[in-house]
């Protein structure tokens, strides 16, 4: 295996020490292929039969069985955390993290006692399996047949390992219509020629291969169907090359949709993969169909409701306008108004949720600092359209956190003295001249810590149709997959933060029940419901999409009559570390014990008894 072969050099030790942990490395964990992961899951279950259940989750188009690990003593009766990893199939470290987390949860009673864990270590096993085959190439598509070039054949023109080094890299060819030039001072890297500077392109770039089907194109129909991490329903990109026919068109993603919506106890989702909300909280700024800060009321609607249509309103203002027009007992809320006005779906994180995302991110950075991690890495990516993490937040309405566990270290730069904006722009241009910053970092990492194995030097090759070419370039996965020797230290550093995350889950409790006699057998009952957790129940997105199951307060007592209030009271929202008061007026002719029961799938159960009458 390519990533196994990489030995830990002295330099590597230094890097790990610098970037991660001041502890010695013991390389025990290795990247495991889908079959080996399934075997480990089964072993985990056999070793802990009372704590671990294994669900047959789905079978991929490539015929691979997906297993979901359930850990916990209490099943669906307590809140659950759903952990999904490696939906792109391109993140081996994510799968190892999920497996390591499973072991940690099994051996930690504080984690498996009051919570249930659903852990899916490989969201896209078909694509992931490619990591273990040679030649090495990467593609997030699952095993579904897909005709990329819509010609008369499918998967007929994949990559070819022309130089026989077991790695699919790239080919560069001198051509009149070339658009690429080598980077000055680092001719291994390529950059776009800048016509404004009078530059002409020299090279054309291809991926390594021949024109297998003789259609004039190279590697245009490689095996690989749908990227599961693009196949979820939020911001699904229709007719995208790897997005699938429709959201949930694949067994892998469909199983997840079905699973999540049949487990309303899922209170938090954690995704291991390509993004890291702990370092880079989700970003807003996407243009939605309608700006909820400036809503125009349609003329006819305005006329019938008596609303001035010449100006715009915020969503809160519309709620205020509409509330008095509703029949008694009906409450206008954001969701109702947004749906009534056809405002469409939410595409940016709710502002109230950004508060916890930013606070937790600061806390996490503080945590890393305390662990002695100061070195900078490249910024994690933002989630892809149709990804698991986007769907989980926008459609389940629960807090979602993501971790990628490793990123390329930022190459050291000479410090420049305070620059004006103009100078900054010049610097950006100059950086582009140096090549793509990610490629620069990737090459630096390969040179310094991988003995150059992350990059195949350009070497000339006689290509059957392109003639004289050079083959070389980056090793697939070398941008996001550190050598196996680093896995343990990376996980030991970052997985211990997961318990910190789940500690923040909302926990609802009945703080106090108070009764006041009003005379004539009439009592006022007051109950304080407190959220003992940091996160609000539900989060703002859950309030908007109304997917999280409501928490219900039930008042029980024989022979009582409820004069005011309801027997079953839905609890709308309780902010983190906040309390909300509920009041009933009841009549009881004789002495009675009242039970107040609080039930929430996501935020726990509680009950309190009180006596009235007599």
């Amino acid at each position, binding site marked *: 295996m390519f990533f196994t072969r990489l030995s830990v050099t002295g330099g590597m030790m230094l890097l790990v020490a610098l970037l991660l942990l001041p502890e010695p490395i013991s390389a025990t964990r290795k990247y495991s292929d889908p079959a080996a992961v399934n075997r480990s899951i089964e072993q985990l279950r056999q070793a802990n039969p009372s704590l671990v259940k294994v669900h047959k989750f789905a079978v991929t188009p490539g015929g691979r069985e997906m297993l979901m690990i359930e850990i916990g003593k209490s099943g669906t009766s307590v809140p659950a955390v759903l952990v999904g990893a490696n939906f792109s199939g391109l993140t081996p470290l994510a799968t190892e993290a999920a497996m390591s987390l499973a072991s940690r949860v099994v051996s930690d009673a504080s984690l498996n006692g009051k919570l249930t864990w659903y852990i899916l270590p490989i969201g896209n096993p078909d694509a992931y399996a490619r990591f273990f085959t040679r030649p090495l190439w990467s593609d997030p598509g699952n095993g579904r047949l897909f005709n990329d070039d*819509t010609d*008369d054949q499918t998967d007929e023109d994949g990559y070819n390992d022309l130089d026989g080094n077991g790695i699919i890299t790239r080919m560069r060819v001198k051509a009149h219509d070339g658009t690429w030039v080598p980077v000055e001072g680092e001719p291994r890297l390529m950059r776009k020629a800048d016509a404004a500077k009078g530059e002409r392109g020299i090279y054309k770039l291809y991926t390594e291969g021949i024109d297998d089907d*003789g259609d004039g194109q190279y590697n245009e129909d490689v095996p690989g169907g749908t990227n599961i991490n693009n196949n979820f*329903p939020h911001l699904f990109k229709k007719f995208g090359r790897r997005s699938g026919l*429709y959201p*949930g068109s694949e067994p892998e993603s469909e199983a997840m949709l079905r699973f999540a919506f049949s487990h309303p106890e899922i209170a938090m989702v954690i995704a291991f993969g390509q993004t890291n909300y702990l370092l880079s909280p989700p970003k807003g700024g996407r243009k939605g169909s309608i700006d909820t800060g400036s809503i125009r009321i349609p003329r006819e609607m305005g006329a019938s409701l008596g609303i001035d249509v010449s100006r715009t309103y915020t969503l809160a203002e519309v709620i205020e306008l509409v509330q008095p027009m509703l029949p008694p007992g009906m409450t206008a809320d954001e969701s109702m108004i947004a749906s009534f006005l056809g405002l*469409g779906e939410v595409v940016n994180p709710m502002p109230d949720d950004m508060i916890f995302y930013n606070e937790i991110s600061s806390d996490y950075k503080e945590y890393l600092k305390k662990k002695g991690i100061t070195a900078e890495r490249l910024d994690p990516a933002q989630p892809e359209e149709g990804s698991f993490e986007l769907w989980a937040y926008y459609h389940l309405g629960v807090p979602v956190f993501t971790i990628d566990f490793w990123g390329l270290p930022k190459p050291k730069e000479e410090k420049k003295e305070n620059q004006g904006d103009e100078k900054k722009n010049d610097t950006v241009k100059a950086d582009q001249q140096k090549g793509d910053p990610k490629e620069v970092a990737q090459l630096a990492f390969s040179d310094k810590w991988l003995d150059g194995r992350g990059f195949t030097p350009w070497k000339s090759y006689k290509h059957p149709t392109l003639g004289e070419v050079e083959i070389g370039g980056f090793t697939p996965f070398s941008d996001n997959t550190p050598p196996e020797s680093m896995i343990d230290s990376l996980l030991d550093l970052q997985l211990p933060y997961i318990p910190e995350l789940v500690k923040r889950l909302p926990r609802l409790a009945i703080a106090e029940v108070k009764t006041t006699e009003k005379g004539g057998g009439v009592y006022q009952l007051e109950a304080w419901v407190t959220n003992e957790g940091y996160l609000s129940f539900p989060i703002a997105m859950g309030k908007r999409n*109304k997917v999280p199951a409501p928490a219900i307060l039930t008042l029980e007592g024989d022979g009582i009559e409820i004069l005011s209030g309801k027997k079953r009271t839905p609890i709308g929202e309780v902010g983190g570390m906040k309390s909300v008061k509920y009041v009933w007026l009841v009549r009881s002719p004789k002495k009675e014990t009242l039970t107040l029961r609080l039930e929430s799938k996501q935020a726990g159960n509680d009950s309190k008894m009180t006596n009235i009458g007599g």
Partner: protein
Amino acid sequence: MERKRVFMLLAMMALAVMLIRAQEVKVPLRFDFYYSYEKMVEAMKALNTAYPEFTKLDEVGRSEEGRIIWALTINNPKTGDPFSKPGVYVDGNIHGNEIQAGEVCLYLANRLLTNYGKITEITDVVDRNVFYIIPVVNVDGRAHFFSDANTASTNRSLRIPMDDDRDGLFDEDGPDDLDGDGNISTMRIRDTLGRLRSDPADKRLMITVKPGEKGEWTLLGQEGIDNDGDGLINEDGEGYVDGNRNWGMNWKPNYAQRGAGNYPFEGKGIRAIAEWMLARPNIILVFAFHNNGGMYLRGPTSKEAGELPQEDVAVYDYLGEHMEKIVPGYRYLISWKDLYPTYGDFTDFTDKIIGSYSLVGELFQPATETYDGTLKRVEEERSRSGDPSAGDRQRLLFDDNVNQGELYKEWTAFKHPVYGDIEIGGWTKMSSRLPHPFMLQDLVHRNASSVIFAARQTPRVTMDVFEVKKIGGDLWSVRVRLVNSGAIPSVTYETIRNKLYPVDKLTVTGRNAKVASGGVLTNAWMNQVNYKEYRPEVQMCQVPGMGKVEYQFLISGRGDIEIRYESRKAGSVSKTVTLK
């Protein structure tokens, strides 16, 4: 004594069985009554039994409550297997209450099968196409519409329980048939401070009080009680996932559009039908029947979905302009613009993912329920007469004297557990969106005729090798013309735009021949050809409706060459010519 009673009971039961037998469904089918779900299945089986060689009955899938969704495939095996012909898919009743849509589908099947070999147009349309017919999509909805008390509009959704009022309970407070007449009607209470009073011209109607007038009534909504004791009546009824908002194209979540469901294809039957259709790539024409408005709708179903390519619009316009004449009073409209936008709509899915021309038929026209039988549109009647109740007045007159009052329930006193003395009355479930059975025959025939009209326009591609010319040495010029005599192209333009699937293929093969070059002949007179640089022996193509496409191949060699056209949706055709 006891024994005698048991005997009597048995005798009555035997008589009942005999009566049911007597009503057994027979081919040709009758269309003067509405088929329950069970009867509908029986009717499909009867057609299948009567025409075993032409029909196939498939279990497409099962619903939430386990009912089978049946599809009837009509294909003449003597003219080829199903995939060698254009597929015409017709369904109905995706909304459980819209039952006559099922009858349209059933009538179409009955019409095609019982008249094959008798009427030339029908024989031809059956020989050239394969028909896929699913009369009832929402099988649970249809079953409950018949068996339960309903309004004309309830029981629309799939049987996926939803907590509409967010109290942690599911579907716990729907309407109740308080008077036990099988209908959910309207409740009203006497209220001198109410906003309504009885219409002096017809006491059954209520009109809004004018300032200074005394009120008489307050409306209390649909018949029902507060089943869950939460102070609200009928606030969490059956469902609500709308089968026609749950398809995986331009789908939006439930908070953006009520009825969407938690995710696309959450509905078991909906997913099963999608998969069944995807397994039939030859489907080029889709009809989905609904029940209200008197319209044929084309996509797009939302503005965001983007306008269809103009060439596709032209095809729809041609079909629509004829179809709206086939059914008097119908209007051919654009779904999002003329009706309202929908997301996750069935026809958006079939337009874009199945690659078919897709139309929705909204069957019922209230304007046809007139005393004198002429079409009277409610809005026109209102503005003409200045009487806001003009529409209801017309319908009551119609019901009184044409249906003998069958569809309207007189206001009747009732003792309500919460409201006390109230009245229950109004239009019944078999009214308002359903034609009286005496008008059903006309409705189903005309709509089936629209489907048959459109099915006659499916692509019919022929090949003409119109030039085989030696141009020196062993090099030949061969010109091929593909002609489509149907109005519907062999591939929709939307499909081409989205690169949905590999389009049609024209290939040239010969044992002793090599295609040196080939491409679209854009101008035969001026000899202009768009040559394809690589693999000229394979041309990916489309044949436009009522149109042609021409190719020129330069072939070196001799002997027989086969020119073959293959299409997902328009079958295949081939010719062999000899280079000599």
